[in-house]
């Protein structure tokens, strides 16, 4: 197969996205047919670039928090002293996924007020689940032979964790982080219903003023970001998996 075609498409998408964010007015003629006579076709209540960066920042902060907490928790419940909590943590993760993001967001508002904070909490809680689940899977499905060898060579518990278990589980953990980031990118837009500065602002402005062009540009920027970040993570996972000596799709 011609392996370079997807890469060219990705590069084109990235170039298009950057061009749109840096000088959106160039694309005015493209979107103009979608709006009624005098309505603006390009979002004019703030800079798209700033909103995109704020959007990415919100997702990055929430995901970093989620990675730290989820990976630590998964490590704790897979050690012998935390094994008692393993079944419960599994069912909690299951239950947690049934909470709708809008509900989490709305319920966080009375405690944290409007703005970025409730969005961060909702994204953090939502991001925990896939990372925790994948870290658990990664740490509990290590090849027994490797674990035996590590134990046999006299490694301490700590050495085993950092030199054997985590590196081997890393591709699966990264897959969880990738999933979590993609979900967060889309969910962050809902944060704008409680006045968080994200790309959701563009979409909601479009919904309120019946401006399809706004909705479309907000939605497509988020979609493009998600596709690019998803592909970036997949590439890193493949490199790590190859280094760990597993198959590319391990």
């Amino acid at each position, binding site marked *: 197969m011609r392996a370079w075609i997807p890469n060219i498409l990705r590069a084109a998408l990235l170039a298009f996205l950057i061009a749109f964010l840096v000088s959106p007015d160039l694309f005015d003629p493209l979107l103009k047919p979608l709006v009624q006579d005098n309505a603006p076709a390009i979002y004019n209540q703030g800079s798209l670039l700033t909103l995109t960066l704020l959007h990415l920042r919100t997702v990055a902060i929430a995901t970093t928090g989620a990675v730290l907490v989820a990976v630590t928790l998964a490590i704790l419940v897979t050690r012998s002293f935390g094994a008692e909590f393993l079944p419960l943590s599994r069912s909690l993760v*299951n*239950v947690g996924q049934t909470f709708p993001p809008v509900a989490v967001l709305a319920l966080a508002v009375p405690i944290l007020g409007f703005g970025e904070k409730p969005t961060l909490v909702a994204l953090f809680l939502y991001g925990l689940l896939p990372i925790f689940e994948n870290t658990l899977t990664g740490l509990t499905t290590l090849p027994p032979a490797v674990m035996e060898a590590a134990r046999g060579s006299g490694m301490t518990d700590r050495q085993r964790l950092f030199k054997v278990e985590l590196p081997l589980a890393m591709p699966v953990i990264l897959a969880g982080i990738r999933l979590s980031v993609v979900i967060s990118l889309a969910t962050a837009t809902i944060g704008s219903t409680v006045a968080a500065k994200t790309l959701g602002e563009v979409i909601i402005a479009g919904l309120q003023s019946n401006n399809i062009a706004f909705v479309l540009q*907000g939605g497509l920027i988020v979609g493009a970001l998600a596709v690019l970040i998803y592909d970036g993570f997949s590439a890193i996972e493949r490199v790590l998996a190859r280094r760990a000596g597993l198959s590319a799709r391990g």
Partner: protein
Amino acid sequence: MSIRFDKLGVVIGVLIAYGALAAPFATFRANRIVPGDAKGILDALPTGAGMLLLGLLAGAALIVLLRTPTRLRLLVAAAGLAAIAVFIGMAATHLTPPANAYARVSPASGFWILLFSFALLAADSITRLRPLPLVRVLLLAITLGGAAVVLMSGLWDGLSILKEYSGRADVFWLEAGRHVTLALGSLVASVLVGLPLGILCHRVAPLRAGVLNTLNLIQTIPSIALFGILIAPLGWIAVHVPGAAAIGIRGIGAAPAFVALFLYSLLPVVANTVVGLAGVPREANEAARGIGMTDRQRLFGVEFPLAMPVILTGIRIVLVQNIGLATIAALIGGGGFGVFVFQGIGQTAMDLVLLGAVPTVVLAFAAAIVLDALIEINAPQRERSRAA
């Protein structure tokens, strides 16, 4: 004799102690939007009742702290949940001045911490007991039935969330109907389209990557944007296709919400059908061919039953996700529980937000338990038929 502590019990015991002693049990507000006055258990309840609740909680904490039989712990969890349900109702009646329609009493952080502690205890005991799927559904039914009895009895009528409800009971049931119709309707549509599409992708390999990649791309578009984007084409159809408007297709409202939920639902259904069918053991298929089954017989008699647990997992994902996403429909006039959530956010009336959020969470939770049970009931058949 040595006393042995339960590790999780220590955590839950501390939570119960904190929720009972350090956090407020109920909040009293003179009307629905002013800041509230937090009350501890002894302030929120008549003296006797307050002491009784504290005593009950202390007893529960003690049983939970020690290594006690799992069934007893489940019983304590159920009793604890029932107790705080009854006492929060009493607190509302006790705190509301007689004949005052404006005062609002709502559960405060202590109540939610206690609720969380006992729910955690229940989840832990149920996980340890590993009940059969039907027993789990029964437990769910008992819990929901208990809540319904308390609701009907009028015990909670003094609580702010029910005061919000009593003002708009008709609208509430209308939106509830819309919410369920949206979530279930789009699920049915996605199964009707997704199953055949999944079978097609399974049989015609070149289609697979293209279809799955397209469906994956749809998932990256944020829900509020997809809902909005669909307004344009559906509005066009309503104007230009004869009869479309007559069956309810319109640019805003339920139609774009329905289509958006349907599009989001396709990926889990199609992908799980493909994975499920691919996981059917080769020997099963060959045996079926060997005894002269036609393609159609093989599909319905062998492949489908074997792939069922995986397909059902996809349907579970879709149903839970749709129940949550249907709240967004309110943003484009599609109705559903989201109406109360967004109205509540707009008026900073959190009781109204709860009126929308609590039923959504309960619905999603119940759907997850019922479908998990269904998946498990279907899974052993697979083992049996493999062994046979």
